[in-house]
Protein backbone atom coordinates (compact mmCIF):
# COMPACT_ATOMS: atom_id res chain seq x y z
CA UNK A 1 0.00 0.00 0.00
CA UNK A 2 1.34 3.37 -0.98
CA UNK A 3 1.90 6.02 1.62
CA UNK A 4 -1.23 7.95 2.50
CA UNK A 5 0.57 10.78 4.19
CA UNK A 6 1.05 13.13 1.22
CA UNK A 7 0.17 13.85 -2.36
CA UNK A 8 3.62 13.24 -3.80
CA UNK A 9 4.16 9.89 -5.47
CA UNK A 10 7.07 7.93 -4.03
CA UNK A 11 8.72 7.54 -7.44
CA UNK A 12 8.46 11.26 -8.04
CA UNK A 13 10.05 11.91 -4.68
CA UNK A 14 12.92 9.53 -5.43
CA UNK A 15 13.43 11.04 -8.89
CA UNK A 16 13.35 14.58 -7.52
CA UNK A 17 15.77 13.60 -4.79
CA UNK A 18 18.20 11.94 -7.17
CA UNK A 19 17.98 14.85 -9.63
CA UNK A 20 18.71 17.32 -6.84
CA UNK A 21 21.67 15.19 -5.79
CA UNK A 22 22.94 15.14 -9.38
CA UNK A 23 22.60 18.92 -9.68
CA UNK A 24 24.29 19.43 -6.31
CA UNK A 25 27.03 17.02 -7.39
CA UNK A 26 27.65 18.91 -10.62
CA UNK A 27 27.68 22.20 -8.72
CA UNK A 28 30.14 20.74 -6.23
CA UNK A 29 32.34 19.43 -9.02
CA UNK A 30 32.33 22.82 -10.73
CA UNK A 31 33.06 24.63 -7.47
CA UNK A 32 35.97 22.35 -6.72
CA UNK A 33 37.45 22.53 -10.20
CA UNK A 34 36.95 26.29 -10.49
CA UNK A 35 38.74 26.93 -7.22
CA UNK A 36 41.79 25.12 -8.61
CA UNK A 37 42.07 27.60 -11.50
CA UNK A 38 44.17 30.40 -10.03
CA UNK A 39 42.82 33.93 -10.57
CA UNK A 40 45.69 35.64 -8.79
CA UNK A 41 49.24 34.45 -9.30
CA UNK A 42 52.02 35.41 -6.93
CA UNK A 43 54.68 34.91 -9.57
CA UNK A 44 57.55 37.36 -10.05
CA UNK A 45 56.98 40.15 -12.59
CA UNK A 46 58.03 39.29 -16.16
CA UNK A 47 59.23 42.88 -16.67
CA UNK A 48 62.83 43.72 -15.83
CA UNK A 49 64.93 46.85 -16.26
CA UNK A 50 68.32 46.04 -17.81
CA UNK A 51 70.04 49.43 -17.89
CA UNK A 52 71.12 51.83 -20.65
CA UNK A 53 71.49 50.57 -24.22
CA UNK A 54 75.14 51.60 -24.54
CA UNK A 55 76.05 49.07 -21.84
CA UNK A 56 75.68 46.32 -24.43
CA UNK A 57 78.58 45.69 -26.78
CA UNK A 58 78.76 43.33 -29.78
CA UNK A 59 79.83 39.80 -29.00
CA UNK A 60 78.77 39.94 -25.38
CA UNK A 61 75.91 37.93 -23.91
CA UNK A 62 74.32 39.36 -20.77
CA UNK A 63 71.81 37.27 -18.89
CA UNK A 64 68.92 38.35 -16.69
CA UNK A 65 66.08 36.75 -14.81
CA UNK A 66 62.71 38.13 -15.95
CA UNK A 67 60.01 36.46 -13.86
CA UNK A 68 60.08 32.72 -14.51
CA UNK A 69 62.25 33.14 -17.58
CA UNK A 70 65.98 33.47 -18.19
CA UNK A 71 66.75 36.20 -20.71
CA UNK A 72 69.95 36.71 -22.70
CA UNK A 73 70.38 40.16 -24.21
CA UNK A 74 72.54 40.13 -27.33
CA UNK A 75 73.70 42.92 -29.62
CA UNK A 76 73.43 41.68 -33.17
CA UNK A 77 74.07 43.42 -36.48
CA UNK A 78 70.59 44.92 -36.65
CA UNK A 79 70.31 45.82 -32.98
CA UNK A 80 69.59 44.52 -29.50
CA UNK A 81 67.35 41.58 -28.89
CA UNK A 82 66.40 39.60 -25.81
CA UNK A 83 66.43 35.83 -26.30
CA UNK A 84 64.12 33.91 -23.99
CA UNK A 85 66.27 30.98 -22.92
CA UNK A 86 63.45 28.49 -22.57
CA UNK A 87 64.03 25.62 -24.96
CA UNK A 88 61.12 25.30 -27.38
CA UNK A 89 61.27 21.55 -26.91
CA UNK A 90 60.55 20.94 -23.22
CA UNK A 91 61.33 24.23 -21.49
CA UNK A 92 64.82 23.65 -20.05
CA UNK A 93 67.38 26.46 -20.10
CA UNK A 94 69.98 26.29 -22.92
CA UNK A 95 73.38 27.59 -21.76
CA UNK A 96 75.55 29.99 -23.74
CA UNK A 97 78.71 28.36 -25.01
CA UNK A 98 81.33 31.02 -25.89
CA UNK A 99 83.47 28.48 -27.80
CA UNK A 100 80.88 27.56 -30.40
CA UNK A 101 78.91 30.83 -30.10
CA UNK A 102 75.71 28.89 -29.56
CA UNK A 103 73.19 27.91 -26.91
CA UNK A 104 73.24 24.29 -25.75
CA UNK A 105 70.25 22.74 -24.01
CA UNK A 106 71.32 20.42 -21.17
CA UNK A 107 68.16 18.31 -21.15
CA UNK A 108 67.96 16.80 -24.65
CA UNK A 109 70.86 18.34 -26.54
CA UNK A 110 69.22 20.96 -28.75
CA UNK A 111 71.59 23.58 -30.16
CA UNK A 112 70.61 27.16 -31.08
CA UNK A 113 72.52 29.92 -32.87
CA UNK A 114 73.07 33.36 -31.34
CA UNK A 115 69.95 34.41 -33.27
CA UNK A 116 67.99 31.64 -31.59
CA UNK A 117 67.60 29.45 -34.68
CA UNK A 118 67.74 25.68 -34.34
CA UNK A 119 71.01 24.05 -35.41
CA UNK A 120 70.21 20.66 -33.97
CA UNK A 121 66.95 19.19 -32.65
CA UNK A 122 64.86 17.95 -30.98
CA UNK A 123 63.74 21.58 -30.53
CA UNK A 124 60.96 22.15 -33.08
CA UNK A 125 61.16 25.97 -33.31
CA UNK A 126 63.58 28.87 -32.81
CA UNK A 127 63.98 30.41 -29.37
CA UNK A 128 61.53 33.22 -28.63
CA UNK A 129 62.53 36.85 -28.35
CA UNK A 130 61.00 39.07 -25.69
CA UNK A 131 59.76 42.62 -26.01
CA UNK A 132 62.64 45.07 -25.50
CA UNK A 133 62.06 48.84 -25.36
CA UNK A 134 63.10 52.02 -23.59
CA UNK A 135 60.98 52.87 -20.55
CA UNK A 136 60.04 56.25 -19.03
CA UNK A 137 63.36 56.48 -17.22
CA UNK A 138 65.25 56.15 -20.50
CA UNK A 139 66.48 52.67 -19.61
CA UNK A 140 65.97 49.44 -21.50
CA UNK A 141 63.21 47.19 -20.27
CA UNK A 142 62.45 43.57 -21.18
CA UNK A 143 58.96 42.11 -20.93
CA UNK A 144 59.18 38.31 -21.00
CA UNK A 145 55.39 37.98 -21.21
CA UNK A 146 55.37 39.35 -24.78
CA UNK A 147 57.34 37.00 -27.02
CA UNK A 148 57.81 36.25 -30.72
CA UNK A 149 59.82 33.71 -32.74
CA UNK A 150 58.58 34.24 -36.28
CA UNK A 151 61.71 34.90 -38.40
CA UNK A 152 60.17 38.05 -39.93
CA UNK A 153 58.24 39.56 -37.01
CA UNK A 154 61.09 39.06 -34.55
CA UNK A 155 63.09 41.62 -36.58
CA UNK A 156 60.49 44.31 -35.98
CA UNK A 157 59.60 46.46 -33.00
CA UNK A 158 59.28 45.73 -30.11
CA UNK A 159 61.34 42.54 -30.44
CA UNK A 160 64.35 44.29 -31.90
CA UNK A 161 65.82 47.49 -30.45
CA UNK A 162 67.62 49.62 -33.03
CA UNK A 163 70.70 51.21 -31.50
CA UNK A 164 70.59 55.01 -31.65
CA UNK A 165 73.03 56.31 -34.26
Amino acid at each position, binding site marked *: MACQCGKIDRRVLVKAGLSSLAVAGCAGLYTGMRS*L*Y*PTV*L*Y*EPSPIIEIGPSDAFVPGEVKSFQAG*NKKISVIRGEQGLYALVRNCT*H*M*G*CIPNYDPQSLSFLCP*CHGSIFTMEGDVVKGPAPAPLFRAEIAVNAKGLLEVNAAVIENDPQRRLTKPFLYQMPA
Partner: protein
Amino acid sequence: MQTLLNSILRPAAVRRKGYNALLHIHPRTVDRQSLRFTRTFCMGGLAFLMFLVLTVSGVLLMFLYVPETERAYRDMKDLAYVVPFGRFMRNIHRWSAHAMVVFVVAHMVRVFYHKAYKPPREFNWVVGVACLILTLLLSFTGYLLPWDQLAYWAITVGTNMISYAPIIGSKGPLSMVAADSDLKFIVLGGHAVGQNALLRFYVLHVVALPLLLLVFIMFHFWRIRKDNQLKAKRPL
Protein backbone atom coordinates in the same frame (compact mmCIF):
# COMPACT_ATOMS: atom_id res chain seq x y z
CA MET B 1 29.45 -1.14 -8.21
CA GLN B 2 26.51 -1.90 -5.99
CA THR B 3 27.82 -5.36 -5.34
CA LEU B 4 31.18 -3.88 -4.47
CA LEU B 5 29.58 -1.46 -2.00
CA ASN B 6 27.55 -4.33 -0.57
CA SER B 7 30.63 -6.43 -0.16
CA ILE B 8 32.18 -3.66 1.92
CA LEU B 9 29.08 -2.54 3.81
CA ARG B 10 27.32 -5.90 4.31
CA PRO B 11 30.03 -8.54 4.27
CA ALA B 12 28.06 -11.15 6.25
CA ALA B 13 25.17 -11.15 3.80
CA VAL B 14 27.30 -11.72 0.75
CA ARG B 15 30.12 -13.79 2.23
CA ARG B 16 28.67 -17.10 1.14
CA LYS B 17 28.64 -15.82 -2.44
CA GLY B 18 32.33 -15.09 -2.16
CA TYR B 19 31.95 -11.40 -2.95
CA ASN B 20 33.79 -10.00 0.03
CA ALA B 21 36.60 -7.65 -0.89
CA LEU B 22 37.91 -7.55 2.67
CA LEU B 23 38.24 -11.31 3.06
CA HIS B 24 39.87 -14.12 1.19
CA ILE B 25 41.19 -13.80 -2.33
CA HIS B 26 41.37 -17.58 -2.39
CA PRO B 27 38.24 -19.72 -2.58
CA ARG B 28 37.71 -22.82 -0.39
CA THR B 29 39.11 -25.12 -3.01
CA VAL B 30 42.14 -24.10 -4.98
CA ASP B 31 43.60 -25.60 -8.10
CA ARG B 32 47.00 -27.13 -7.34
CA GLN B 33 48.35 -25.36 -10.43
CA SER B 34 47.45 -21.94 -9.08
CA LEU B 35 49.55 -22.48 -5.95
CA ARG B 36 52.74 -22.93 -7.91
CA PHE B 37 55.20 -20.06 -7.70
CA THR B 38 55.59 -19.87 -11.47
CA ARG B 39 51.86 -19.31 -11.86
CA THR B 40 52.16 -15.69 -10.69
CA PHE B 41 55.78 -15.14 -9.60
CA CYS B 42 54.07 -13.19 -6.76
CA MET B 43 54.43 -10.02 -8.81
CA GLY B 44 50.96 -8.60 -8.08
CA GLY B 45 51.25 -9.48 -4.40
CA LEU B 46 54.67 -7.88 -4.17
CA ALA B 47 53.36 -4.74 -5.87
CA PHE B 48 50.63 -4.58 -3.22
CA LEU B 49 53.21 -5.18 -0.48
CA MET B 50 55.18 -2.23 -1.85
CA PHE B 51 51.98 -0.15 -1.74
CA LEU B 52 51.61 -1.00 1.98
CA VAL B 53 55.26 -0.23 2.72
CA LEU B 54 54.98 3.06 0.82
CA THR B 55 51.84 4.02 2.75
CA VAL B 56 53.46 3.42 6.14
CA SER B 57 56.82 5.02 5.29
CA GLY B 58 55.05 7.85 3.47
CA VAL B 59 52.94 8.72 6.51
CA LEU B 60 56.10 8.79 8.62
CA LEU B 61 57.77 11.12 6.11
CA MET B 62 54.74 13.44 6.18
CA PHE B 63 55.56 14.27 9.81
CA LEU B 64 59.00 15.51 8.73
CA TYR B 65 58.42 17.29 5.42
CA VAL B 66 56.74 20.61 4.58
CA PRO B 67 55.76 21.18 0.91
CA GLU B 68 57.00 24.77 0.84
CA THR B 69 59.62 25.96 -1.64
CA GLU B 70 61.88 27.45 1.04
CA ARG B 71 61.73 24.36 3.22
CA ALA B 72 61.19 21.29 1.06
CA TYR B 73 64.82 20.77 0.00
CA ARG B 74 66.15 21.52 3.50
CA ASP B 75 63.62 19.12 5.05
CA MET B 76 64.86 16.47 2.65
CA LYS B 77 68.46 17.22 3.69
CA ASP B 78 67.43 17.12 7.36
CA LEU B 79 65.98 13.68 6.75
CA ALA B 80 69.36 12.57 5.45
CA TYR B 81 71.60 14.22 8.05
CA VAL B 82 69.62 15.20 11.16
CA VAL B 83 66.56 13.02 11.71
CA PRO B 84 67.37 9.68 13.42
CA PHE B 85 66.71 6.92 10.85
CA GLY B 86 65.50 9.68 8.50
CA ARG B 87 67.73 8.61 5.65
CA PHE B 88 66.66 5.00 6.19
CA MET B 89 62.97 5.97 6.04
CA ARG B 90 63.39 8.06 2.93
CA ASN B 91 65.36 5.33 1.19
CA ILE B 92 62.75 2.73 2.14
CA HIS B 93 60.16 4.99 0.52
CA ARG B 94 62.31 5.71 -2.52
CA TRP B 95 63.38 2.15 -3.29
CA SER B 96 59.92 0.74 -2.59
CA ALA B 97 58.55 3.27 -5.06
CA HIS B 98 60.99 2.13 -7.74
CA ALA B 99 60.23 -1.51 -6.88
CA MET B 100 56.48 -0.95 -7.05
CA VAL B 101 56.71 0.34 -10.62
CA VAL B 102 58.94 -2.62 -11.55
CA PHE B 103 56.60 -5.15 -9.90
CA VAL B 104 53.49 -3.64 -11.48
CA VAL B 105 55.06 -3.78 -14.94
CA ALA B 106 56.40 -7.31 -14.31
CA HIS B 107 52.93 -8.37 -13.15
CA MET B 108 51.47 -6.96 -16.33
CA VAL B 109 54.05 -8.76 -18.47
CA ARG B 110 53.38 -12.04 -16.64
CA VAL B 111 49.62 -11.67 -17.18
CA PHE B 112 50.23 -10.90 -20.84
CA TYR B 113 52.45 -13.93 -21.51
CA HIS B 114 50.04 -16.24 -19.65
CA LYS B 115 47.18 -14.90 -21.81
CA ALA B 116 45.45 -14.12 -18.53
CA TYR B 117 43.97 -10.94 -19.95
CA LYS B 118 41.57 -13.00 -22.08
CA PRO B 119 37.89 -13.57 -21.25
CA PRO B 120 36.55 -14.11 -18.67
CA ARG B 121 39.24 -11.91 -17.08
CA GLU B 122 39.34 -9.12 -19.64
CA PHE B 123 37.68 -6.59 -17.35
CA ASN B 124 40.25 -7.14 -14.61
CA TRP B 125 42.95 -6.29 -17.19
CA VAL B 126 41.24 -2.92 -17.65
CA VAL B 127 41.17 -2.39 -13.88
CA GLY B 128 44.84 -3.36 -13.82
CA VAL B 129 45.69 -0.75 -16.45
CA ALA B 130 43.98 1.88 -14.26
CA CYS B 131 46.18 0.71 -11.37
CA LEU B 132 49.27 1.00 -13.60
CA ILE B 133 48.39 4.56 -14.59
CA LEU B 134 47.75 5.54 -10.96
CA THR B 135 51.07 3.95 -9.94
CA LEU B 136 52.92 5.97 -12.60
CA LEU B 137 51.11 9.17 -11.57
CA LEU B 138 52.09 8.54 -7.94
CA SER B 139 55.66 8.02 -9.05
CA PHE B 140 55.59 11.23 -11.11
CA THR B 141 54.02 13.42 -8.39
CA GLY B 142 56.47 12.08 -5.79
CA TYR B 143 59.39 12.99 -8.04
CA LEU B 144 58.91 16.75 -7.50
CA LEU B 145 58.80 16.67 -3.71
CA PRO B 146 62.58 16.65 -2.94
CA TRP B 147 62.65 20.02 -4.78
CA ASP B 148 66.19 19.56 -6.09
CA GLN B 149 67.45 20.31 -9.60
CA LEU B 150 66.61 16.83 -10.89
CA ALA B 151 63.06 17.11 -9.55
CA TYR B 152 62.53 20.65 -10.84
CA TRP B 153 63.65 19.97 -14.42
CA ALA B 154 62.04 16.55 -14.63
CA ILE B 155 58.69 18.09 -13.72
CA THR B 156 59.32 21.05 -16.06
CA VAL B 157 59.84 18.62 -18.93
CA GLY B 158 57.01 16.34 -17.81
CA THR B 159 54.45 19.10 -17.51
CA ASN B 160 55.59 20.67 -20.80
CA MET B 161 54.55 17.40 -22.41
CA ILE B 162 51.05 17.93 -20.97
CA SER B 163 50.67 21.07 -23.09
CA TYR B 164 50.93 18.83 -26.19
CA ALA B 165 47.84 16.83 -25.14
CA PRO B 166 45.02 16.99 -27.70
CA ILE B 167 42.16 19.47 -27.14
CA ILE B 168 42.98 20.39 -23.52
CA GLY B 169 46.66 21.22 -24.15
CA SER B 170 47.56 24.64 -25.57
CA LYS B 171 50.07 23.26 -28.14
CA GLY B 172 48.39 19.95 -28.92
CA PRO B 173 46.31 18.93 -31.93
CA LEU B 174 42.75 20.33 -32.00
CA SER B 175 43.71 22.62 -29.14
CA MET B 176 40.74 24.53 -27.77
CA VAL B 177 42.45 26.34 -24.89
CA ALA B 178 45.00 29.10 -24.40
CA ALA B 179 48.24 28.64 -22.47
CA ASP B 180 46.62 30.40 -19.50
CA SER B 181 43.83 27.88 -19.15
CA ASP B 182 45.14 24.56 -20.44
CA LEU B 183 45.77 21.35 -18.54
CA LYS B 184 49.41 22.22 -17.83
CA PHE B 185 48.34 25.50 -16.22
CA ILE B 186 45.85 23.82 -13.89
CA VAL B 187 48.29 21.03 -13.00
CA LEU B 188 51.00 23.54 -12.09
CA GLY B 189 48.63 26.19 -10.74
CA GLY B 190 50.70 28.76 -12.64
CA HIS B 191 52.99 29.34 -15.61
CA ALA B 192 56.05 27.57 -14.23
CA VAL B 193 56.92 25.00 -11.59
CA GLY B 194 56.59 26.93 -8.31
CA GLN B 195 54.91 26.92 -4.91
CA ASN B 196 51.46 26.13 -6.31
CA ALA B 197 52.83 23.20 -8.29
CA LEU B 198 54.69 21.82 -5.26
CA LEU B 199 51.56 21.99 -3.09
CA ARG B 200 49.36 20.44 -5.78
CA PHE B 201 51.75 17.57 -6.42
CA TYR B 202 52.05 17.00 -2.66
CA VAL B 203 48.28 16.81 -2.11
CA LEU B 204 47.86 14.53 -5.13
CA HIS B 205 50.76 12.37 -3.95
CA VAL B 206 49.73 11.91 -0.32
CA VAL B 207 45.90 11.99 -0.47
CA ALA B 208 44.09 11.91 -3.79
CA LEU B 209 46.06 9.33 -5.79
CA PRO B 210 46.70 6.81 -2.96
CA LEU B 211 43.00 6.74 -2.03
CA LEU B 212 42.01 6.30 -5.66
CA LEU B 213 44.60 3.55 -6.11
CA LEU B 214 43.37 1.78 -2.96
CA VAL B 215 39.83 1.70 -4.37
CA PHE B 216 41.09 0.27 -7.66
CA ILE B 217 43.30 -2.28 -5.88
CA MET B 218 40.33 -3.55 -3.83
CA PHE B 219 38.27 -3.75 -7.00
CA HIS B 220 41.13 -5.62 -8.72
CA PHE B 221 41.34 -8.18 -5.88
CA TRP B 222 37.60 -8.63 -5.72
CA ARG B 223 37.48 -9.33 -9.47
CA ILE B 224 40.03 -12.14 -9.02
CA ARG B 225 37.59 -14.00 -6.80
CA LYS B 226 34.60 -12.98 -8.91
CA ASP B 227 36.20 -14.33 -12.08
CA ASN B 228 37.08 -17.59 -10.27
CA GLN B 229 40.66 -17.20 -11.34
CA LEU B 230 42.01 -19.46 -8.64
CA LYS B 231 39.18 -21.91 -8.16
CA ALA B 232 39.72 -25.62 -8.69
CA LYS B 233 38.39 -26.86 -11.97
CA ARG B 234 37.89 -30.26 -10.33
CA PRO B 235 37.95 -31.29 -6.66
CA LEU B 236 41.40 -31.86 -5.25
